[in-house]
């Protein structure tokens, strides 16, 4: 602050009282698009004002409020209180179906846990991508279990409490067996031996054949 700013100027009215100065700083900072330095604020205020004092009072006033008077470098600005930052986020929840690969992998882990990656691949007939397992782990539905005591000591995968919770199961043993699935009509395929040439359908082409059929029914 230069001398001139604070020196009483006989040509001007006396400066407004401090509460009024505080109001003024409040309005100026509220309306400003950028943080403002004390000097810039002073330039806007009537002569003889003491922005430092007004800023102090204003800062104290907003203490604990939803909005705070924040110091930004040499300047001042109103900012949302840090603990209320979550209000500035509008969360849009988008629900998406789990991919077929992820669903199958999850199913295999649930039915066969603890299961190694190689075993999952054997059952699925295709390689399991790292991303699929990562996604399931991130969803907290799958976690890494103990290492298998076999050559190479591969890690195993198991389902989590969160998984059981999400699918409403008390334990993984509650998962229905194949016979029950069939009885419940959940097996879409026909019973074998209905005049279809084996090897024509469903052999070796894991993802592809399935994906084709599936396209007819659901968008993934």
């Amino acid at each position, binding site marked *: 602050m230069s001398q001139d700013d604070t020196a009483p100027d006989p040509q001007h009215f006396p400066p407004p009282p401090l509460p009024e100065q505080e109001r003024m700083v409040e*309005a100026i900072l*509220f*309306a*400003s*698009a*950028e943080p403002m330095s004390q000097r810039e604020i002073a330039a806007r205020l009537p002569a003889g004002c003491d922005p430092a004092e007004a800023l102090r009072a204003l800062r104290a006033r907003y203490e604990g409020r939803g909005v705070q008077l924040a110091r930004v470098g040499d300047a001042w*600005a*109103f*900012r*949302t209180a840090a603990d209320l930052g979550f209000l*500035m*986020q*509008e*969360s*849009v*929840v*988008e*629900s*998406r*179906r*789990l991919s*077929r690969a*992820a*669903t*199958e992998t*999850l*199913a*295999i882990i*649930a*039915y066969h846990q603890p299961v190694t990656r190689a075993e999952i691949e054997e059952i*699925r*007939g295709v390689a399991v991508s790292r991303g699929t397992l990562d*996604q399931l782990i991130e*969803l907290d539905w799958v976690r890494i279990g103990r290492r298998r005591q076999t050559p190479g000591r591969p890690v195993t995968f198991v389902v989590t409490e969160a998984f059981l919770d999400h*699918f*409403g*199961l008390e334990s993984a043993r509650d*998962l*229905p067996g*194949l016979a029950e*699935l*069939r009885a419940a009509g*959940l*097996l*879409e*395929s*026909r019973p*074998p031996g209905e005049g*279809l040439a*084996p090897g*024509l*359908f*469903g*052999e070796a082409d*894991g993802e592809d*054949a*399935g994906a*084709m*059929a599936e396209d*007819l029914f659901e968008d993934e």
Partner: protein
Amino acid sequence: MTKVPYLTPVPDPAPDPAPHLLGLGPQAVAERRAEEVLVVDVSGFEGPLDLLLTLSRTQKVDLMQVSVLELADQYLAFVDEARALRIELAADYLVMAAWLAYLKSRLLLPPDPEAEGPSAEEMAAHLAFQLERLNAMREAAARLMARDRLGQDRFARGAPETVARQRQVAWQAGLIDLMRAYARLRTRDEFRPYAFDRRDVLTMEQALDRVRGLIGYAGDWTALSAFLPEGWEADPQRRRSATAATFAATLELARQGAVEISQAGTFAPITIRRRPE
């Protein structure tokens, strides 16, 4: 009328060139004439009512007390002056002038008890009301504009904080999906892509074509089974499909009014016939 600006130089109605202009071409004469036309800013008025309102102020009385008779005189004088200055007034100014002249004559004449419609006084009162209302709206507009306006006296937050849109993906999978996926995997050897086996299925379209072709011969009640295609009666699965499709086809034809369907009782044979003309 396509162009009626308030001020249009009036073309000289009487081509009577002044002596000093003799010898100039007609085009030059027209140009000189056009230059002589005095331009008065009539466009400063927002229509005849606005002009009347302005004139009424010269009476220096409250609008409620304004003398409509005097106002009419002022207006007519203004229009005369504009004519004298060869200012072409927009049509509505002239319509107003004619109406005021009429109103003036009505106001001056003793009231005719036989006359229908509003009296001259009522018409004058309505004009006064209109002037007062326009004036009130004009004042209201001024008061409105003098308010503490946003962006001039009141300000919004200069640095609004943007609301971040967070996209959260909730992955959905139900137990059924899980079990299906597993079942699919475990029964892969028996699994095949779902494809409709048409070999043993008679479609409704096929049945419809067939029944349409045959119905012409069925003037009398004929059993539905008679319409089944050959070779479809023996195998139970084929017969089932053919019967269902044919029945559906006859229902459709009945709906169209082509056939009638009859059944004596529950599970009794269904018979159909062409609808009698």
